[in-house]
């Protein structure tokens, strides 16, 4: 399709209707595992669902341009509700499922939502709690009636009931649905996406239908999508990535969207579906890598032997391909053997048996990690984008990967480096500003004389000679020490997290100090296994984290990483934290990015101790438990100093 067609079929619902006409009941649109079986729904089924819900919303009084919040696990009703909202000409506002009531209140109130979709009792209860504070919300629609049998509140209405209302309206006005879809325009607001916000309150990025369509159209030119593709939808639907990778290509290219049975079965369900494209945030790739390494360690000797034997061959082939060199016949044969014995079974175990393109985004994934997965035949690449760019920006294309870079610009998108080193992204996929926030909009969005929208990413980077974008760090996070040495905390963290024993790290340093230090949170599972193997007794996380043997273990990892760093930017001291970083305590965002300002504040005692002469510090931290209660943990945390290895 060229750009002129995009001007006619310019909204997601219009594309959806194109697919319905194309496939009808001859092709599966959506699959969901229920009662242990993958249940299938054709495009015609999907159409009936979307139409009835859309008209039901209309009969509840939803107007073009209204906002509708939606919260719930990924499932077919969520997708249908999403499409129905868009078909009615309204805007969908996603809320993360683990949001606490005050967060939900902020999003629902700030977005001026008039209706709310809330999956089940859990989410409905949260809305009932904040009901008084969101007076604009007229009705809450739930789609899982489990536990809701005795709720008689007229504020609540079931999904089925909305469909009934819709069917009634459809009988009275049979053309209404098609008219509603036809009235939509490409520049209509499609999605209000509240960014996880590493700083301050969440901001609602306004994305139009054309933002998404321009993005997917351009991406498909380099990484084509087909209607036979299976996509598995498990990343939060409130997050932009799921709209760019599942919802939009579903409507545009007709790929099949598969929903897991429950959040706990995702891993198993991925393996059953074997998707063609997979997107994991950087953290998940890291977890996966740690998992593979642990499982191999626990595996039989023969598995361990093959893994040890063939991984170097995998690395060699990956490196040759990376350098664009030819793989010799002997190596090719060995790799074929390795693929047969190790790599293919491994890919299958991870559910990546059919993956054509694997991508990562969010936090930066270390080059080691990219190389690791590519060594066993997974075409893993980095994507650099953000909510504000409809999750499209630069990307590693299959045959053009550079470990140090974040890829080349996708055709619709331009990259510009501002004078202060900030990366700007421009094009049709760039958002239209933050909802009800002029100040923030003018800080991050500019329009040039050609009418191109530019998003100021706040990231530092540069373009190299091959046209690849090199990402350094957040502009504000590039840090200069007192001795004028520079370092990038993210880089150090990415490298350290390659150790299976380290779950999270924050590297610390500023213009008043001369050395880099690190707060390290151990991976309880892997370190626990290590302790069991070495007969180290421990009780809790706190206890385990302070064992001398564990310090020694982590010390080795830190030393290894230090060797790859310039001497001035090496980690000189570290502590092992008595707890994990926790999103519930606002230490990380919901997508598990560190909130550095908050962490620096919270662990200020520990950090200043590392820059002093002491070798331990006692901490008493307030911990908020999952059920909302608070408790206090008191313990001594040791400070580990690395001996200076003076090279002559």
């Amino acid at each position: 399709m060229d750009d002129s067609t995009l001007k006619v079929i310019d909204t997601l619902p219009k594309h959806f209707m194109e697919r319905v006409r194309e496939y009808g009941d001859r092709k599966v649109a959506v699959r969901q595992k229920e009662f242990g079986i993958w249940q299938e729904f054709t495009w015609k089924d999907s159409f009936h669902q979307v139409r009835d819900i859309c008209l039901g919303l209309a009969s509840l009084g939803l107007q073009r341009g209204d906002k509708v919040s939606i919260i719930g696990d990924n499932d077919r009703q969520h997708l249908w509700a999403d499409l129905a909202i868009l078909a009615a000409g309204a805007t969908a506002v996603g809320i993360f499922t683990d949001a606490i009531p005050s967060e939900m209140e902020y999003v629902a109130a700030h977005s001026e939502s008039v209706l709310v979709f809330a999956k089940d009792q859990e989410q409905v209860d949260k809305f009932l709690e904040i009901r008084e504070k969101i007076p604009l919300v007229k009705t809450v629609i739930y789609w899982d009636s489990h536990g809701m049998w005795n709720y008689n509140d007229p504020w609540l209405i079931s999904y089925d009931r909305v469909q009934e209302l819709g069917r009634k309206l459809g009988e009275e006005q049979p053309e209404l649905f098609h008219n509603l879809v036809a009235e939509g325009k490409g520049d209509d607001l499609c999605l209000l996406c509240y960014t996880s916000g590493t700083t301050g309150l969440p901001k609602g990025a306004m994305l139009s239908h054309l933002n998404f369509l321009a993005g997917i159209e351009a991406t498909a030119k380099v990484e084509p999508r087909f209607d036979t593709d299976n996509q598995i939808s498990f990343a939060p639907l409130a997050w932009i990535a799921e709209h760019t990778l599942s919802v939009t290509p579903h409507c545009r290219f007709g790929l099949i969207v598969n929903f897991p049975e429950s959040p706990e079965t995702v891993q198993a369900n991925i393996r059953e579906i074997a998707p063609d494209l997979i997107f994991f945030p950087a953290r998940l790739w890291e977890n996966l890598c740690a998992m593979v390494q642990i499982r191999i360690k626990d595996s039989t000797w023969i598995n361990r032997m093959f893994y040890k034997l063939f991984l170097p061959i995998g690395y060699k082939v990956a490196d040759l391909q990376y350098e664009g060199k030819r793989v010799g016949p002997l190596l090719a044969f060995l790799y074929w053997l390795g693929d047969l014995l190790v790599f293919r079974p491994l890919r299958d175990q991870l559910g990546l048996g059919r993956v054509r393109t694997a991508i990562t985004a969010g936090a930066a994934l270390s080059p080691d990690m990219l190389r690791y997965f590519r060594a066993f035949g997974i075409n893993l690449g980095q994507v650099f984008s953000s909510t504000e760019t409809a999750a499209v920006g630069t990307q590693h294309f299959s045959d053009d990967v550079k470990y140090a870079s974040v890829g080349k610009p996708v055709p619709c998108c331009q990259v510009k480096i501002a004078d202060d080193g900030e990366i700007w992204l421009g094009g049709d996929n760039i958002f239209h500003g933050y909802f009800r926030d002029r100040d923030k909009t003018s800080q991050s969005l500019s329009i040039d004389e050609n009418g191109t929208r530019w998003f100021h990413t706040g990231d530092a980077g540069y373009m190299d000679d091959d046209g690849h974008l090199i990402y350094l760090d957040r502009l504000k996070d590039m840090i200069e020490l007192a001795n004028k040495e520079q370092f990038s905390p993210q880089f150090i963290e990415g490298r350290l997290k390659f150790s299976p024993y380290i779950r999270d790290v924050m590297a610390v340093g500023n213009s008043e100090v001369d050395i880099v230090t690190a707060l390290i949170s151990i991976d309880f599972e892997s370190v626990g296994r290590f302790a069991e193997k070495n007969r180290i007794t421990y009780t809790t996380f706190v206890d385990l984290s302070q064992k001398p043997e564990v310090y020694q273990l982590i010390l080795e990892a830190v030393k290894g990483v230090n060797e790859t760093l310039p001497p001035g930017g090496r980690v000189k001291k570290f502590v092992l934290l008595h707890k994990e970083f926790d999103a519930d305590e606002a230490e990380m965002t919901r997508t598990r990015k560190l909130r550095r300002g908050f962490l620096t504040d919270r662990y200020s005692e520990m950090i200043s101790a590392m820059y002093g002469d002491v070798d331990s510090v006692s901490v008493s931290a307030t911990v908020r438990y999952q059920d909302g209660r608070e408790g206090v943990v008191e313990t001594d945390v040791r400070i580990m100093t690395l001996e200076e290895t003076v090279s002559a």
Partner: protein
Amino acid sequence: MAENNGQLIVEDVYLSFGGTLALVDVSFNVHKGEILAIIGPNGAGKTSLLNCINNFYKPDKGSITFNGTNITKLPPYKIAKLGIARTFQNLALYTGLSTVDNLMAARHLHMHQSMWGSMLYWGPAQREEVENRKIVEEIIDFLEIEHIRKATVGALPYGLRKRVELGRALAMEPELLLLDEPMTGMNVEEKEDMARFILDIHELQDTTIVLIEHDMGLVMDISERVVVLDFGRKIAEGSPKEVRNNPNVIQAYLGQEG
């Protein structure tokens, strides 16, 4: 008539082990569709009472009537067939089988194919298997244990095993569900989940539930009536509020003042 007084009528039950009196003249009724809690200090005879109801123990004296049928002398499997299912304090699952297989085993009660028919598998036996599997899958969905469907029960953590055991009891589609300490050994979150499941079972299927539980907060929250035992005797019965203010109960739990 029996229906007016209660679905389950326990009348003047005595039980002794050698010289020890475990239950002394215990009488109470369970009404259809209620949640009744039996509480009492350790060794008060709570589990013995449940064991009498499904006849693991034979009461020395007294009678137990369920839906108008005297079940005092019936063997446990016949009592199960009448619609009384239970869970056990210390779990009673096939630890070597998967969750699904444990639940399917509980469906045995509702399967009618002969041994020969089952060995052939095709035809009626297969249809029966599929029908029962559907019911089992609904229970799996209800209790949110999809992720452990194929897991060996013996390898599961305690909280989940308790949930599987509840599933096993539900698979019998009971009219009366006896739960023996369904929440022991669980953390707060697991307990809250379990409480929610119990309330859901009660709401959805109008199942009568008799439960023994030590967590007073939970008992008071979810039960409609409470029976208190102490040294084998019933010392109080009534709504949670009445029981909480009953001087006998306070004394039994806190001991004699002085």
